[in-house]
């Protein structure tokens, strides 16, 4: 924690507001400017994955619980929407399914509570294993509960009645709204004590509990919110593609894509996952376009994957912030040397937990609070 970021404890800052409104304007303008179908389709998937990455970042980035099971909840949301559709006569296939989404998110969030309670008895690697197993449980269920999911035949969702010229746009705006919601929630968490609690849990959970942070409650909340958002993304996706198959609704590649996007952009940063999605999704689509027909796609994808991790293990944003901080430090140091005046920064109480054990993390934390 740098002193500067501790001073900005106000929830709403002018700079933050400017950034938020600029980003919102950008999100709204993009599909109107680039309105070709393939472009809006690409934008939709980018924004949808960005929303999921931001959501994953809450638990995987800030709290340091690398969940590999988020795809299970994506599937839950997808099947949730398809079920409500086929089961109820009330719902028409216009804009109403979008109104259903908050319910889907809430339901998934509630289901996540007992699951999270059990899964979070483990940490780090074991948690990753348990959650990836969860993903396979969900896939097996999707294949086997034929009454609910239609099994391997898949479940269909009524085709949306939108005009062909703007067919993708309602979905895009729903995804964009979800992205803004996810970012808003993340911002809120980071600017309040919850963010500190999450970072403390990541740095050293036992110590965090020792100093009185209610670790279980905070973890569960983050997990629940995170997978709730992903379930909503699943709902939008199901309505968009119109057909829900187990192998696509609960896809290990989806989990790994959002994790990779978060890692590429920078974990535990607000904008990192968005940046990661903005880079990777077009790249993925491009790759699928050029080599998708052949089986080379997987190889190319894995190669890019390995390259990113080996070359940029920290992610883009933290690397940039780190460089910038280093050069700033160097500048101040040389200045101080020249003037030979001791530094006069005010002594500020630092939260002890975050300082504890991860110096590298502390170095990058200046950027994380943006």
């Amino acid at each position: 924690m740098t002193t500067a970021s501790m001073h900005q404890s106000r929830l709403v800052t002018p700079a933050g507001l400017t950034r938020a409104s600029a980003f919102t304007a950008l999100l709204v303008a993009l599909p109107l400017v680039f309105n070709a179908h393939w472009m809006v389709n690409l934008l939709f998937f980018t924004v949808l994955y960005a929303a999921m990455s931001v959501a994953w970042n809450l638990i995987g980035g800030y709290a340091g619980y690398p969940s590999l099971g988020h795809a299970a909840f994506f599937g839950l949301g997808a099947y949730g929407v398809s079920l409500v559709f086929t089961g109820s006569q009330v719902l028409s296939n216009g804009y109403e399914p979008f109104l259903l989404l908050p319910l889907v998110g809430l339901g998934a969030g509630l289901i996540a509570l007992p699951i999270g309670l059990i899964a979070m008895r483990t940490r780090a690697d074991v948690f990753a294993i348990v959650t990836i197993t969860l993903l396979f449980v969900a896939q097996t269920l999707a294949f086997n509960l034929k009454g609910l999911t239609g099994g391997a035949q898949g479940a269909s969702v009524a085709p949306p009645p939108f005009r062909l010229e703007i067919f993708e746009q309602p979905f895009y705006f729903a995804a964009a709204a979800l992205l803004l919601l996810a970012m808003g929630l993340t911002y809120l968490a980071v600017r309040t004590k919850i963010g500190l609690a999450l970072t403390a849990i990541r740095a050293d959970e036992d110590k965090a509990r020792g100093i009185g942070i209610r670790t279980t409650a905070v973890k569960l909340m983050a997990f629940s919110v995170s997978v709730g958002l992903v379930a909503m993304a699943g709902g939008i996706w199901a309505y968009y593609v119109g057909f829900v198959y187990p192998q696509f609704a609960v896809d290990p590649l989806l989990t790994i894509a959002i994790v990779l996007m978060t890692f590429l952009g920078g974990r535990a940063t607000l904008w990192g996952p968005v940046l990661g999605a903005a880079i990777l999704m077009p790249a993925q689509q491009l790759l699928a376009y050029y080599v998708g027909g052949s089986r080379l796609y997987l190889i190319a994808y894995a190669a890019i994957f390995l390259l990113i991790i080996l070359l940029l293990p920290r992610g883009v944003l933290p690397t940039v912030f780190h460089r910038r901080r280093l050069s700033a430090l160097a500048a101040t140091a040389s200045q101080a040397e020249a003037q030979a005046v001791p530094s006069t920064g005010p002594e500020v109480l630092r939260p002890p937990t975050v300082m504890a054990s991860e110096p590298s993390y502390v170095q990058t934390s200046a950027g994380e609070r943006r």
Partner: protein
Amino acid sequence: MHALIQGLILGVLTGGVYALMASGQTLIFGIMKVVNLAQGAFVIASAYLAFTLFTRFGIDPFLAVLITTPLMFCIGAAGQWLFLRPLRRENAAELSLLVTFALALLIEGILSVTYSTTYRSINTGYANKSFEVAGYTVSAVRLYGFLLSIALLGLLYGVLQKTRFGRAIRATVQNPQSAALLGVDATRVQAYGFGLGISTAAASGSIFGLLYPFQSGSHYDLISRLLSVVVLGGLGSIGGAVLAGIAIGVVSSVAAVLWSPTWSEMSFFVVLLLVLLVRPQGMFGRVERGAV
């Protein structure tokens, strides 16, 4: 009752193979705290190798183990050297998950390019042979596979207990820093240890290929089962993995007999869930601060 005991026999025989696969995975975790998500992919790759050796050169899959095991060892050691060794940073544990997942994808991709994605199976002359023992049927392939697995597990145990290299590995598992201080070359132990862990995939791949039809995507099914076994046994405990492998093999085949084969898959996860509720560190895992 007859069906139940039949299921039990089947479960023990299948469980032995899972035990072999999982022992490699848990060894890798013990040495370098890496959860190897590519273990299943290496098993499938070995199955394809055995398939090629059998169809092209007529080498029996059980004999092919002599070729595939050293090969897998080299591939594993090289993979560790290339992709995992550079990750010596603060979040190496999480990054290594991603790296091994990427490796799994890479292997899947390479396999599906070389062999296409249709299901293959290795049909040897004795594929459908079986023995009758006191009224119970024991498939020959399963029995040989089980015996081979047990023999290899014994060999692995011998290597770990009796050789200098094994002692270096065990020392690294117990305490990496002290081991390094005492002159254990950590870099070498990690590369060779990873190779050793992967090499268990070779024999299990041959057996898997004999038992089930497989394709490049089959590693997803395998990895979820393997992870259940490894967590159940306690990460890093080879003995635990062996017991858990057999236990889960028995539970799932008994579930298949009593309930339905479609749901026997789930029994892995149910067992895992129950264990986590009671003992998050698994049956034989040690509680390490910050790990579990």
